[in-house]
């Protein structure tokens, strides 16, 4: 799907170990990025996201999701009553609850099964609980994809707004660290990748609607597209011709030289990172500055959305955090940039982001 035309960002909500807050908090972090720890959110940090009553009935990953969604909606000042949709990307969903549910059975047989845990084993539980928490009553989708789930959610939501199908969308991503997943990724030879956890949301709406209600516009998703490059499941392909970037640039009426900088999905998965570099190089040339926040914050589906919010910040500020080896902030041309994600298996997403 290709989204085009006057879809703006009016709210940002981020919940990660390194930064939690709205667009201002994210901007402050990006201007002087530093990270300590392993990317895992502390119990104390999670406890601040929802009230104790909610915390008792919500799984941890649902708490992360709702926390980030509320921050984004709060910043935008949008009334969900106008018609709010929700798209959430996730790679692993609430696998922790699934383990717990299965462990109950393995320990005690049918008597050990929890009726409260079962709904969390379905991957759309975060969307269902968030829709209830924020009053989103239009379309609500959970998109599952390796690596690019967050970017895909923003692209899909932008398309819905651009087509006029939904008055406004909350687009987000979420994942949490799970010991079983980490162990299995290591078995698959992907243990070197930097992984993290968290949630992030942006509020998307038509520019005219945002202007009419006096909202502050943080950036514009000028175009978005997703396609698939040929690759075996979980494999790295050889094709460098990105149809997603081409489609997004065409939809934005932009040339490759208009793209001043890129937020890419690099995260120390060497084979995939190399493939993405080749794809970006073929589409944009090799001189375009590329930031890979995954190397700093660890990859999770929320990061894809955070990178869209970061791109809006870079488009405004002309600052780009670079994280290759050392961390530094470069001054770049404000204005148009690209958010790109490429997954093992070939799914890839491109979003053209502009200043407001």
């Amino acid at each position, binding site marked *: 799907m290709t989204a085009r035309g006057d879809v703006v960002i009016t709210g940002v909500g981020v919940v990660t170990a390194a930064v939690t807050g709205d667009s201002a908090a994210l901007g402050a972090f990006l201007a002087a990025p530093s990270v300590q720890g392993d990317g895992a959110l502390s119990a104390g940090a999670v406890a601040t996201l929802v009230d104790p009553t909610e915390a008792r009935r919500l799984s941890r990953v649902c708490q992360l999701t709702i926390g980030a969604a509320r921050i984004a909606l709060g910043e935008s000042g949008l009334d969900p009553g106008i018609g709010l949709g929700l798209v959430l990307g996730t790679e692993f969903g609430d696998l922790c609850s699934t383990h717990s549910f299965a462990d109950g059975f393995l320990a005690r047989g049918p008597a050990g099964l929890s009726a409260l845990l079962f709904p969390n084993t379905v991957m759309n539980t975060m969307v269902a609980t968030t829709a209830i928490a924020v009053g989103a009553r239009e379309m*609500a989708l959970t998109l599952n994809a390796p690596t690019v789930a967050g970017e895909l959610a923003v692209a899909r939501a932008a398309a819905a707004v651009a087509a006029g199908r939904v008055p406004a969308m909350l687009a987000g991503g979420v994942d949490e660290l799970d010991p079983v997943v980490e162990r299995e990724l290591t078995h698959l030879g992907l243990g070197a990748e930097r992984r993290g956890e968290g949630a992030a949301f942006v509020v998307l709406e038509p520019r005219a609607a945002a202007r009419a209600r006096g909202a502050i516009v943080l950036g514009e998703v000028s175009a978005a597209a997703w396609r698939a490059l040929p690759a075996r499941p979980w494999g790295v392909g050889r094709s460098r011709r990105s149809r997603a970037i081409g489609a997004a640039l065409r939809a934005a009426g932009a040339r490759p030289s208009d793209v001043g900088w890129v937020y890419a999905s690099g995260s120390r998965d060497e084979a995939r990172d190399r493939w993405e570099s080749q794809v970006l190089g073929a589409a944009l040339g090799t001189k375009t500055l590329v930031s890979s926040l995954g190397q700093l914050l660890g990859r999770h589906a929320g990061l894809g959305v955070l990178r869209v919010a970061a791109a809006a910040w870079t488009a405004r500020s002309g600052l780009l955090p670079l994280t290759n080896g050392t961390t530094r902030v470069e001054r770049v041309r404000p204005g148009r940039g690209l958010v790109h994600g490429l997954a093992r298996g070939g799914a890839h997403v491109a979003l053209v982001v502009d200043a407001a």
Partner: protein
Amino acid sequence: MKRVVITGLGAASPYGAGVVAYWKGLSAGVCTIRDLTLIETDGFRCRIGAEVSGPLAGSTRRTRADRLAIGAAGEALADAALGTRDRRGAALVVGAVGGGMLEAEAWYWRAARDTASPATLRAVLPSAHAEALASRFGLGGPRHTVVTACSSGAIALAEAAELIADGVVDVALAGGVDAITRICFMGFNTLKLLDSTPCRPFDRERRGMSIGEGAGFMVLESEARARARRARVYATLGGHGMTTDAFHVTAPDPDGDGMVRAMRAALRQADATPTEVQYANAHGTGTLQNDRIEARALARVFGEGGLLVSSSKSMIGHTMAAAGSLEAIATVLALEHGVVPPTANLATPDPEVPFDCVAHTARAVHLTCAISNSFGFGGQNVTLLFRRGSA
């Protein structure tokens, strides 16, 4: 917006492989719900479900759900006569919930006894089906996997329709798939939502649902493209509506507002009036609440007795992510053949369901317009509206 037509159908159902077997079983009112063999059921009150019988497509190294998807998707692509070149830019949208969970559970159970080798994490996620299908059939257009619980398969069709209507692609393969899993079986047992006998949607004595498995895929095309290549057109997907209850994670809004909004949105998009719709393939799970609320919602939109209603789940169980797409196929075939498939096991109609629910025996009716409803956990509603042939 471009008009969207259906040019290929594929099914892997408890009747076996293929659309022919699926329609033959449905139209004959054959219930396939019986003792489960794929998973252990000791200690559970309900021990039945509808399993796909017979050999599966694809390599035995793939997960059961992947193999169900490959069979149904391959049939749909062949039915639409889409060649390699046609597929290169085609979109792929898959609705899935369990992914390769059946195999992952077997691994997890063994791991609990310290006898398991590392799992194949790559196959467990719902998105694994889309990767397998894209790789197998050379589908290089937009690809995504939607997880909206029991409405996933129908949402996938709606998503593909939007891609075509918005002019992003001219052709798409879309549908849903799920294999029976222990987690699903145990979970619905724990929620006491399963009937220990084959489910009886819309019956006064209904006691809950029966689980099932399968895959249903459709090829959707822009009408212009289908006409240009003189493709066989089964039906037009005239409209769809997607809404959310935002009410409860496992229970539908008792007022049925989300369902009503989905049905009205589908009518609006199709520019159809309620009186044009002659048949609703209901979500019809057989649970006390769902059937009653759906009936109320149908009555609010179409009027009491305003259309025929039946539930395919009475015959093939609730096939989870596949349900919405398999039932959409049933709706399209009902339009094609002029036959409304029945609701099996319906002995005593519930007086709170003010519709003719076509008990036991299929009915010959000249149909021109029908809807298929799907309502998922978390209040995720979708209605698809089909018109016969190329409208």
